[in-house]
């Protein structure tokens, strides 16, 4: 450690978890493309399997390249450790299935990525895990939704695509009073914009596919544990037997006895990765690490570009609404000022005055923005829900979902901001001509 203070964010983004390779001297993180690792002896092998020694056995469970990524994201989030997974969805699935089984209940924000909503509402309910969805800003609804079998609160730091900022201090307080942890999806903010553990969250999931990578080349996810939730603490009343009782599936280990603060991660890796197997490729981990090295620089640019684009759109006569919390009219403006002082991210939606056809014309006239279904790329991205993801839905139903015929979602990238504004200006002009 270099000094008397905790290392800063930019230093950790480059160095956490990585040292020059002891066998080759390689300074950059090597990609360990190997399925398995040779044991020193039969006794060492048995010790590794029995958690008496720490090391790598098989790359589904751990890998040295992945371990660097796991340490790095844990360092950036202020957590105790992390697990890399095949995707953000796999990370969410791992977090949930480590904590509960059939007969359990989750309270979740209704402002979620569609894939997360599907997992909770349709898929997990098939396996006996029910979810009650509440409006993220309705604190009484969070409180009222708690049942005796509730095991988890879940929300997004900033909800996609309405940009509802989750009131982490308030929601975590309600969760903790109910004896359950708060898990947040921090994909759209990344630790550079917000550190959810500082505001009361207990667990974090990321789709590392987005801002952490930044290059739009790989799919990956991460689960991070803050080490703050006491699984046998006040109000838990035996809810987390998966962690506090002997587990026959792993040498009758009582995870909370083995590790006072790391029981969740112990079980998630030793059961979830082992048995469900949604692990990350070491090559993917390496690519995500390349992204994280420049995360502070990129996020600053994402935010400054977004501010310019938002200001341009807010003043444009063809635009009826811009849904970004940096604007005073946004319902989350005050919360964003408090929880996201560096900026509220670069994914947001806006409405074009006019018809569904005009929205489509706008999209097709764009030349710099890429029309696709992703966010958090270094390139600027756009999608028009009414003509793509919701094209079969009539205008009334769209409205009920908070989507208008002219609603457009943008993910602002790292291009020259003037070029982004020119591109939008040209496309809005085309849409205007279509009227």
């Amino acid at each position: 450690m270099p000094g008397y203070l905790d290392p800063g964010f930019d230093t950790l983004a480059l160095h956490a978890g990585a040292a020059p390779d002891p066998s080759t001297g390689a300074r950059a993180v090597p990609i360990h493309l190997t399925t398995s690792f040779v044991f020193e002896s039969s006794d060492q092998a048995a010790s590794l399997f029995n958690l008496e020694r720490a090391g790598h056995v098989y790359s589904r469970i751990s890998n040295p390249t992945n371990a660097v990524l796991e340490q790095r994201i844990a360092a950036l989030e202020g957590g105790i450790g992390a697990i890399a997974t095949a995707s953000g969805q796999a990370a969410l699935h791992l977090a949930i299935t480590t904590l509960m089984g059939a007969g359990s209940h989750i309270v979740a924000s209704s402002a979620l990525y569609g894939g997360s909503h599907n997992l909770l509402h349709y898929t997990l309910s098939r396996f006996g895990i029910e979810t009650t969805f509440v409006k993220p800003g309705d604190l009484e609804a969070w409180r009222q939704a708690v049942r005796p079998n509730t095991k988890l609160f879940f929300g997004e730091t900033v909800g996609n695509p309405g940009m509802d900022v989750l009131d982490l201090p308030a929601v975590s307080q309600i969760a903790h009073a109910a004896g359950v942890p708060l898990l947040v999806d921090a994909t759209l903010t990344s630790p550079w914009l917000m550190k959810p553990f500082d505001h009361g969250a207990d667990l974090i999931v990321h789709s590392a596919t987005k801002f952490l990578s930044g290059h739009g080349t790989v799919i990956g996810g991460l689960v991070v544990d803050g080490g703050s939730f006491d699984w046998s603490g006040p109000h838990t009343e035996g809810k987390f037997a998966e962690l506090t009782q002997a587990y026959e599936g792993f040498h009758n280990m009582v995870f909370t006895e083995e590790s006072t603060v790391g029981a969740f991660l112990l079980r998630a890796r030793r059961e979830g990765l082992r048995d469900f197997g949604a692990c990350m490729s070491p090559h993917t981990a390496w690519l995500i690490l390349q992204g994280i090295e420049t995360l502070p620089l990129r996020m600053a640019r994402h935010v400054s570009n977004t501010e310019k684009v938002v200001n341009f759109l807010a003043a444009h006569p063809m635009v009826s609404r811009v849904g970004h919390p940096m604007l005073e009219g946004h319902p989350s403006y005050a919360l964003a000022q408090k929880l996201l002082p560096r900026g509220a991210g670069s994914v947001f939606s806006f409405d074009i005055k006019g018809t569904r056809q005009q929205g489509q014309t706008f999209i097709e006239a764009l030349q710099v923005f890429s029309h696709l279904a992703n966010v958090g790329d270094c390139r600027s991205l756009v999608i028009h829900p009414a003509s793509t993801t919701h094209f079969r839905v009539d205008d009334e139903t769209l409205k009920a979902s908070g989507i208008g015929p002219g609603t457009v979602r943008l993910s602002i990238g790292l291009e020259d901001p003037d070029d982004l504004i020119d591109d939008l200006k040209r496309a809005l002009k085309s849409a205007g001509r279509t009227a």
Partner: protein
Amino acid sequence: MIYKVQGQPLYAYTGGKTFDPAKPTAVFIHGVLNDHSVWILQTRHFAHHGWNVLAIDLPGHGRSGGKAPESVEDAAECLVQLLDAVGVQKAVLIGHSFGSLIALHAAAQLADRVTQLVLVGTAYPMRVSPALLESSLNDPQNAIQMVNIFSHATLAPPPSALGPGTWLLGGSKALMRRVLASNPHENIFHIGFKACDQYDQAKEAMSKVACPTLFLLGQKDQMTHPKGAQSLIQIAKNAQVVFVNAGHQLMVEAPEETLKALIHFCQK
């Protein structure tokens, strides 16, 4: 496992095994604001390799009840009574930092009941700076930050307590916050530091210890610098010194080297 010691419940992690009087016993004693889980890898290994393990939570810490010991002498007395309560006639004592002073003082009392003594990350005198003492009393969260920066030597630790992907700096802070919160009745952080700072019996205790003593020291330890152990090494009758490439929390920063040194020493 909970034992009744001095009328209070005292927790000792046994490494996933039940106590067997036929096996030798190793007692692990943690440092200030830590608990049994700092030894997770070493204790589990010992327990599965022919040893009884008693990795205690000091009184008033974690899962143990009672008041936190206000002096090294009080903590050592508790340790002696634990061995009596469990019926252990002979044991290896292994202590880290504050725990090393406790192990040393207990070894002096227990004489030939201690077969080997291991002092991990030790120094004498174990002075705590006035700033840290004050901070542990009035601003413990800030003191936790300070202690952890001084206690860790690397941003790239090897696979550790939770396996690969463990971020030790965060893990150690989270543990200290949890242990501090485990006792709302007294500031066990400040009490522990004061006990270290005020202990003045180490030389006398060391001179009474006849069993082999291992000094297991972190080369990059900024909390208890390796030079600080010299005063005891010179007195110890049967000393062995092993340096590990780590900071103060060497059990988690260099778990393999720590384990190998313990096995090598304890199997003699």
